[in-house]
């Protein structure tokens, strides 16, 4: 007995027969009536293909909607199911609730921890269960039974529904008489057993239509396993009619034998074509060529099938555009979401990461693009770096006050923005609290609310319990669009070429099908069952289930994927093309192999049985194809750019205006700091960027503590405090006595300790500072006694140093300590002191002369001499004896200033940047600059300035 009036159930063997035998007549039958007619097809791929077929055959339609099961469901369902992301949130917080009372070492924690790390799979398993009539109680593990039982209860208690359970109820229960139907006529193209998950949903639709026709894949073609039969049985039982085959002859041409090579059966590779390219990008070119060629041969409906929206897809879409081939893209090209949404995602990161500087910086440019922040990203980075250097911590919250109170405008701007974003979140809070915090910030930043957000608000209203902040943030993230629509060619049009996926290509009649990326490991995907509902359990449940629809096992899924490909080949008229690559640019060391289908096709074609079968044959096939670039006629032309590129790398050519030179001399620095001089002599590239161009590099690596540098800074700071006495004249003061200095040092150190957290790390840090500072104070008082001193004093006004051909150069700099016999420079006898708390640096006239080591100190002394003083310069290190250069040796020591003079006089700087070691690097060039070896630079330097670069040898390192 038919339970639904006007019911038909068909079995389809070929998409083409299905179209002629059922679909087209069904569509035409309703013509001219204002009736609600719905066609449901498994995916957007099939709905699109049906429409395209209507267009090709001139079948125009009114009142017919083509829907996927998901969209069709919305026609029926009033009550929204609880979204997956919110289900995960509920589950996560249930797990946390269980973990909370347990000791960290309690073995009972273990399973919950594992489950929390793999909750997505467990939820997938639960959905699998629910879709075919099982319940939480069917999980083999008690914990999962309990957890998902709670989920179901929670959902019911809070007035939500779970999609699969609702579908099942609606699909099984008869419809109340007199209720409004969803449609007058419905045609359901249900496909094969791979659509088992949609069964109840479709059944519910069928029940709510005045007339219904259903088309299923014929089981004989569904392949082995019998699930095809059960699929048909289920529909027969539901509709109460016998299924009947479509009464149409099979199409004359089919590529079915190509697939049979893979799925088992006689098989033949006659209608198969193989493309093996050298690399993945070459593969794209060959596929695009093949499409053009096939179109030329008269192909009228080509499917190019991708495993997903990947790089190959993006590349081929672009190549089709370049070649002017119209195409429909059903794979989908994603674009960036709107800035508002990106900012909100970045906010989620910010709170989830504990309000750190890194995430604040990631937010910054986005905020700035909406004029919500004023500093440039580079300035923001600098400000953050300064803050980090000072506090040695990433967390913004603890230091926001410091930022706001600063007299540096950049710090205040950082503080202003940080204040808007803060406070950070507690570990646990209610969804309403979380939402309130998030929305308050969003409102303050005037960001748009994403579509669908009200559902979150409703959830927060219903769910009152505290939940883990991280889980809430993840749920928020799911409500923010990850991707944005993009206006790309091929979106949704009608065309002879369709870029699609397996799932979307099945059940459509094609003239040709190209399966790309037929490499092992790409597809078919090998899926491991999750550990929550393994294959064994699935098989056992299938034997005992309420319904004949089965839980898919991983073997079953693999077989389904093969069947899907086989179905596509069967519905393809002319040719199946399989393309693959020999290697991926990502990992050129790993040779790729053909996937199992391609392998069988190649074998059948005899391509693998030739001498040296297998890998070599695959390689040969690739080699037989010219590299795509060469065919595109990309022949190197001598261009100006390459000439410049080569000249810069030519060891036999001197530095010229293309290599850090200012031909006009207009940017010659008038004044340099001692630091700039020292680094510029070591590597003139530094001088070029820093002092000639005056551009500053912005670090991009994440903030990391540099203990040595922090200790050095701290030591310098406390020493300055300890040694600064009563003011005398200008920068000079009366040097305190040794005991007084000791007492002041002790006080400064105590102040310093109070600034850092009380833990062993800072204990140790502080001890190092204390030790170094005390040692250094001791050393200072061992130097020739002097009544006056100056700390962190600038070089005298108007001080100059001799720089060879360039005459004298004005210099600046800040010295750690100057001891003097009078409170001024002219006529004074001075000892200039530089502290070093670490590193290998030494001070000697010989080293300074040969390599420019510690030249900064030489400059100090020269500058002092130029101001009418006499004396020497000292390097003090806590663990070493004081080192000194006196005025008698200073001219010899400062020999390298002559080289500096040559740079200044000629305007040619060049570079001597050392080769980068695995852990060491010299001056860092702009990102765009590929390094040039030191040997080449030295040779060029020699050819430019004549003075040989000092003997450096290459570092030994392991290969």
């Amino acid at each position: 007995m038919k339970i639904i009036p006007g019911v038909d159930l068909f079995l389809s063997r070929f998409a083409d027969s299905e179209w002629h035998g059922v679909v087209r007549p069904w569509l035409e039958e309703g013509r001219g009536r204002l009736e609600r007619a719905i066609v449901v097809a498994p995916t957007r791929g099939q709905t699109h293909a049906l429409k395209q077929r209507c267009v090709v055959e001139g079948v125009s339609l009114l009142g017919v909607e083509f829907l996927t099961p998901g969209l069709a469901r919305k026609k029926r369902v009033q009550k929204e199911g609880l979204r997956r992301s919110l289900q995960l949130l509920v589950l996560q917080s249930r797990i946390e609730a269980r973990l909370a009372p347990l000791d960290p070492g309690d073995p009972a924690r273990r399973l919950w921890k594992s489950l929390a790390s793999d909750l997505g799979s467990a939820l997938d398993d639960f959905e699998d269960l629910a879709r075919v009539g099982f319940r939480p109680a069917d999980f083999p593990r008690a914990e999962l039974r309990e957890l998902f039982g709670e989920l179901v209860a929670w959902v019911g208690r809070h007035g939500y529904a779970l999609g699969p359970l609702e579908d099942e109820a609606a699909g099984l229960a008869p419809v109340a008489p007199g209720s409004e139907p969803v449609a007058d006529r419905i045609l359901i193209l249900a496909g094969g057993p791979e659509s088992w998950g949609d069964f109840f949903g479709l059944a519910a639709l069928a029940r709510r239509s005045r007339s219904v026709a259903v088309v299923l894949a014929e089981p004989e073609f569904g392949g082995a396993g019998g699930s095809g039969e059960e699929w048909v049985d289920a529909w027969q039982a539901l509709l109460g009619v016998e299924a009947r085959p479509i009464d149409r002859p099979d199409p004359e041409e089919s590529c079915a034998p190509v697939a049979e090579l893979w799925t088992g059966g006689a098989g033949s590779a006659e209608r198969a074509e193989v493309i093996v390219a050298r690399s993945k990008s070459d593969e794209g070119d060959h596929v695009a060529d093949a499409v053009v060629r096939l179109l030329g041969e008269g192909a009228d409906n080509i499917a190019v099938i991708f495993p997903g929206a990947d790089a190959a897809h993006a590349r081929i879409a672009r190549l089709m555009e370049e070649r002017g081939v119209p195409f429909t893209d059903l794979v989908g090209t994603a674009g960036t979401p709107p800035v508002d949404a990106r900012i909100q995602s970045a906010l989620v990161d910010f709170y989830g990461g504990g309000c750190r500087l890194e995430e604040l910086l990631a937010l910054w440019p986005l905020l700035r693009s909406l004029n919500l922040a004023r500093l440039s990203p580079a300035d923001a980075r600098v400000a953050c770096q300064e803050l980090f250097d000072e506090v040695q911590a990433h967390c913004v919250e603890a230091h926001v006050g410091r930022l706001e109170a600063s007299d540096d405008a950049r710090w205040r701007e950082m503080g202003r923005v940080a204040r808007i974003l803060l406070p950070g979140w507690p570990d646990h809070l209610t969804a309403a609290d979380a939402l309130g915090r998030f929305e308050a910030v969003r409102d303050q930043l005037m960001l748009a609310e994403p579509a669908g957000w009200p559902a979150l608000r409703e959830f927060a209203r219903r769910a009152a319990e505290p939940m883990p902040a991280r889980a809430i943030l993840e749920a928020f993230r799911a409500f923010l669009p990850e991707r944005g629509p993009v206006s790309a060619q091929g979106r949704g049009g009608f065309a002879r070429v369709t870029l699609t996926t397996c799932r979307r290509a099945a059940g459509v009649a094609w003239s040709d099908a190209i399966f790309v990326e037929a490499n092992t490991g790409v597809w078919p995907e090998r899926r491991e069952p999750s550990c929550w509902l393994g294959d064994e359990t699935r098989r056992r449940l299938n034997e005992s289930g309420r319904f004949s629809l089965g839980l898919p096992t991983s073997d079953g899924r693999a077989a389904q994927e093969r069947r899907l490909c086989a179905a596509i080949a069967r519905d393809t008229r002319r040719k199946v093309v399989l393309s693959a690559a020999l290697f991926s640019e990502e990992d050129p060391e790993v040779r790729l192999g053909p996937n199992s289908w391609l392998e069988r096709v190649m074998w059948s074609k005899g391509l693998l049985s030739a001498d040296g079968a297998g890998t070599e044959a695959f390689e040969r096939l690739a080699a037989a194809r010219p590299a795509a670039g060469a065919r595109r006629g990309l022949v190197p032309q001598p261009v100006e750019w390459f000439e410049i590129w080569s000249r810069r790398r030519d060891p036999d050519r001197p530095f010229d205006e293309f290599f850090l030179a200012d031909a006009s001399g207009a940017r010659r620095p008038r004044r340099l700091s001692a630091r700039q001089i020292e680094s510029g002599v070591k590597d003139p590239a530094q001088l070029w960027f820093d002092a000639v161009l005056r551009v500053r590099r912005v670090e991009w690596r994440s903030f990391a503590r540099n203990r040595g540098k922090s200790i050095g800074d701290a030591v310098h700071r406390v020493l300055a405090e300890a040694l600064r006495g009563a003011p005398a004249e200008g920068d000079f003061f009366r040097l305190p006595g040794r005991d007084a200095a000791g007492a002041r040092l002790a006080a400064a150190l105590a102040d310093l300790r109070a600034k850092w957290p009380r833990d062993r790390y800072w204990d140790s840090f502080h001890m190092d500072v204390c030790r170094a500072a005390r040692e250094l104070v001791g050393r200072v008082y061992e130097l020739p006694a002097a009544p006056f001193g100056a700390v962190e004093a600038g070089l005298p006004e108007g001080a100059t140093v001799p720089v060879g051909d360039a005459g004298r150069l004005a210099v600046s700099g800040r010295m750690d300590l100057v001891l003097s016999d009078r409170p001024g420079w002219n006529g004074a006898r001075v000892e200039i002191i530089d502290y070093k708390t670490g590193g290998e640096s030494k001070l000697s006239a010989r080293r300074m002369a040969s390599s420019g080591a510690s030249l900064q100190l030489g400059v100090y002394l020269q500058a002092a001499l130029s101001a009418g003083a006499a004396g020497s310069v000292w390097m003090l290190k806590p663990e070493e004896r004081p080192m000194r250069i006196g005025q008698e040796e200073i001219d010899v020591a400062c020999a390298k200033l002559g080289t500096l003079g040559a740079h200044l006089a000629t305007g040619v700087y060049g570079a001597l940047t050392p080769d980068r070691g695995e852990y060491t690097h010299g001056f860092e060039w702009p990102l765009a600059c590929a390094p040039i070896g030191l040997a080449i630079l030295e040779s060029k330097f020699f050819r430019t300035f004549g003075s040989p670069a000092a003997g450096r040898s290459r570092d030994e390192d392991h290969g």
Partner: protein
Amino acid sequence: MVDLPTDQAARDRFTNEWGVNLAVAANAGSGKTTAISERLAAMALSAAGAEMLGRTAVVTYTKKAAAQIGQRARAVLLHRMTDAGSSDPAPLSRLDRAFFGTIHSFCLLLARRHGSAHGVHLNPTLVDDGEDACWQEFLEQDPMAFSSLSDTQMACFLRHAALDEIFGLAKELNLGAARRLAERRPPDAAPGPSSAVLEEILAAVPLRKGPGASALERNKRTAREWLRKHEEESDPLPIPAAEGSAAGIRDLYRRFFAPLKGWLADAGGVLAAELSLRYRGWRFDRGIQTYADQIETAAALLDDVEMLERIRGEGWRVILDEAQDADPKQFDVLVEISRPPGAALGTWPSGAGIGPRAGHFCMVGDAQQAIYSTRADIRNFQVHIDAFANGNGGELLTFDVTFRTPRRVVRLLNATLGGAFGRGRAYNLGLPPSEGAPAPLLQVAYEPLVPGPANPEGGAWMLPITSNPVDGPHGVDDRRLADEARQIARFLASAGSGSVGAPAWGDICIMAPRKAWLSIVRDEFESAGLKIALQMRRNRNGDNPVYAWLSGLLAVACDPENTFEWVGVLREVFGVSDSVIAASLGSNGDLSWDEPEGHAKPVGAALDVLRPFVGRADGEGESLGRFAEDLAAACGLAHMARLADPEGGLEDELARLLARAAELGAGGAGPRAWLRDLLESTDGFRASGRPAPDAINLITSHSAKGLEWPVVIPVGLWRTISSREPTGLRIVSERGGVPEVVFDNDGVSEDARDLYERARLRELVRLLYVTLTRARGALVVPWAAQVAPGTNSFAELWDLDPGGLDPLPAPSAGAQAASARKGAGAAPAAAQAAESAGAGGPVSAARAPAMPMRILPHELARAPDQARAARHESSVGEPSPVNDGADPLDYGIWWHETLEFLPWAGDLAAVAAHGESSMAKAAEMGFEARGREEWGRLLESEPWRLVRDARWTRLAEVGVLAPLGADAWIDGVMDLVLHDPNAREVWIVDWKTNRRTGVEDDSALLGRLAADYEGQLRAYRQCASAFFPDCPITLWIYSTVAGAWTRVGSSS
């Protein structure tokens, strides 16, 4: 008739005896991978074997090798199937069921399958061993409190050492060592320095006066003073180093501080262990795993007996390739799971336990090629091999036949390498266990090579090098190597590749043990005009020009105010001269990037090119893949890459990076995310360089493992291969399973240092073996008779009498080696491929006509109709737009849904009931008030009255697919269609929920809506008219806000 190799019997056994555990000691070039493949193929071809394959794990150390063996196995199987004339593909499916992968991935699989009851994180994030960012993050959040030392002990440790001394050790410690160290608490009080030694120091006398003498005086003072402070004060007191070396002061200092340093080492070890265990917990909590963690996680599962038995119960059969590279922990996991149920953990091969079940554990390896002592432990491998050799757990087979090495080289190596591996060399021996006892031989045995039946005679020749004087204080070795390389290069350049027996330049490989040496060789070869392909395993990403260009370009696109990066882009990508750049910058180093016209031509042109990309960096709906391609195209990067590297290596890099961008873009990432991705990997390393037919290969001996070339030329044989001693707090050995920690190098005893050096030399011998066994045709040894080999050079280790080598013959000999080149002519398959590609084939059929355009009416309107778009089939799976605030999308959808199933003809009660159920939904969505208001407004409106008229047949949500003009079809859905057949009248109504903008009144609002959506509605009318011929169609736009409608497009 093919001759069989002499070890064929062993090979057959390995192929066919699946019920036996077999270990294979395989010489270089003996076809290890092929042997495993043959075994697997044989299994796949038999029904019984197939059963086993489902539980077979073929594992090896590297990803590359794992991929290779998987493919090799299939190739061999296909070969066998072809031989058998079979057309049944079933064996291929059987082979599909075996697991091929790295040991790490296998451990991950075990952990994922079985770890849930152990709290294992099932979706870990993998980081490199020693990853620093992670460690830094851990350090910052750690409470930095230690319970393993008392406060006094802690104070003592910190007094003499900085806490960060323990960090290096803590970061690297493995679980076992950490646990063992944690138990080794130091005594409560630290011993002071030895006062007896102080006496010796004070008594030391310098040999002569001078700087040494005064340093000695200072050393005495320092020591005395130090001891005083130690006893009297409590200030921080680091341990000083001796100044100079006069009077054996270094040793005196070492002994003086030894007791204290010993204590500090123990204390540091305990602290490091505590921190290490905390780091571990922190990592696991976050699901962060290093490679070592993957193995440890699997190993930890096996500690649970029940779990161990369950995994054993699965019946895994393990085949381990390159077994000499597997570390002990990995061996443990693989061995334990293949042992029989009930076998006690850790009792085989050391211990009396029973070995793996028969047929469940096979391994193939070559101890002679063990060159990774930092991770693998050759002794552990030997222990397993020895067990098999003694019939304990299995049997040992030897494959001594090499199919690679030519006969002449085989003779040479067999005659000269035995010594290097033998007892005659001190470094091959360990220290005697007791006085007078014989020293144990620790080197692996040299297994003489046996040439395969088809191996050519080949060549082993000497290339004489003149030793030119090289002087100067620094870099002598570098310059001598350069000199050698120059001579080789000149010889090759003048005599051609054939002179060494290579058909092409690409058939020659220059090999050296150190990367830095190869750079020197490269410079010399390039100077001689030879093309080279330097292949490096570890090249910094940021140093690759293409990587650098793209990073720089993105940096300026994402932050155009960053002038520093602009300068890089201008000079490097656009080839602008630095002088011109300098002239373009403002006095503060700023660049007016947005005013191209204000700059010199090359700068302006470059800014013009890049300015649009600055705008796109934060654009919405920007496809990153497209952005990347556009950027590369605009700057001509592909062309530049080709010019700078004609071999195509840089183009590959460009393709790789563009693919990466597309990949990221598919997930919605934009240019900024790409920049971040690039920067994060800038300091990372990748293999780079690739072979080309006309370029000589340069490669390190380490990287050469597993590869072969027709001609190999090892360079720098005479050169000392030095090593750097590690420093700081560290473990120097594990004596009896107890890790020995030293505070610094003073703690390393002479014995220990000697043992280390010996082990290093043993490994260098093995590296030499690898180097010498890479040639398929000829080994060419450059030799300068006058140069004495340096200590610990390859030449010193190798017992080579260069006089015994033939000098390189005149070029005719080249032909011989050329014959060693395999697979040169593979014409048939290649031809077939070309044919099947059908390139340029005749065009047989007419091209199919172009398709009509598809028009989605919701895209026709001037303002997007998002509510409509969201409900259309064409947007399934497409990203949804963000609310634009003014006209909330959710509300629009709700309104349409409300109207779709409205009982138009029903009574008031039915309408009200429908309204209420919709309002409930609106309440959930948070817009009940608005919904109620506008719903009420509709019910009171004139349109409502008109639409409810009984004369109509009504249908809401009316799909229309129909031609629109000559070459387009419309594909849309009309909100409401009313048809009065009697009056011959059709109305089409469109619902709009748009809000007012500003102070718009009703008529302005309706006017705006009409203007915006008229196109859409007219299109509907045009199509609908085909279904309702001769029947005027009226178009209406109803505004929910106004509660009124307006007529659109006056006539049909």
